[in-house]
């Protein structure tokens, strides 16, 4: 069973976990990505996520399906925030339930890594000095930086 969604509301980690309980599972791993107060030497005040939802949801469900097949999971689910987030808010949550802990740990790592690299989601950091910057993308403006497109 898999479920992936984008939400503009605060993530309820207890409700998320309760939805994952499965009597056939002996191991459950949950990962939370939090909003941190610094990045690359700058003080961060808050974050903003822009999401292209139609593709993000489809690709997110694809990632969960891959993890279920590859690691033999019972359940895999993830939620990712959109909109404005404050420090310590949960930006992303991943839950994986399996018969044994080994595959639950491995699958959770796989899912969060794929979410970060494959979904059409962009993060803007707002800094204490009043500036704001799109993460990764503003490197595009540097002449020595190129993408393989």
């Amino acid at each position, binding site marked *: 069973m898999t479920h992936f969604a984008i939400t503009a509301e605060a993530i309820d980690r207890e409700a998320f976990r309760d939805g994952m309980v499965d009597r056939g599972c002996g191991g459950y791993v949950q990962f939370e*990505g939090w909003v941190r107060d610094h990045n690359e030497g700058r003080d961060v005040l808050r974050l903003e*996520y*822009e999401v*292209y939802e*139609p*593709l993000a949801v*489809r*690709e997110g469900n694809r990632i969960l399906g891959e993890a279920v097949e590859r690691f033999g999971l019972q359940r895999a689910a993830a939620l*990712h925030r959109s909109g404005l987030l404050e420090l310590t808010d949960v*930006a*992303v949550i991943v839950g994986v339930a399996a018969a044994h802990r080994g595959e639950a740990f491995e699958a959770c790592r796989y899912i*969060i890594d794929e*979410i*970060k*690299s*494959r*979904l*059409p*989601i*962009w*993060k*803007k950091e707002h800094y204490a000095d009043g500036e704001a910057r*799109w*993460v*990764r*993308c*503003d*490197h*595009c*403006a540097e002449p020595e930086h*190129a*993408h393989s*497109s």
Partner: protein
Amino acid sequence: MQVHVSYFAAFREAAGVSSERIDTAARTAAALFAECTGRHPNLQRYTASLVAINDELSGWDAVLADGDAVLFFPPVAGG
């Protein structure tokens, strides 16, 4: 032919619009992006990293058809 182009995140801010209809003779997604950087000079600083056509991720050499919805994505940074 006419296509519908959408820009996201840093691309949207650089272009100054989130989407627009364009009459174009561009044959491929790459040619269309080049045309868009001509329309919006601030986009010239950026190299597009991903393109989707009609909500499917696509290659830069994909051939465009009349009425296509083309999405230009800057490098992603989720999580």
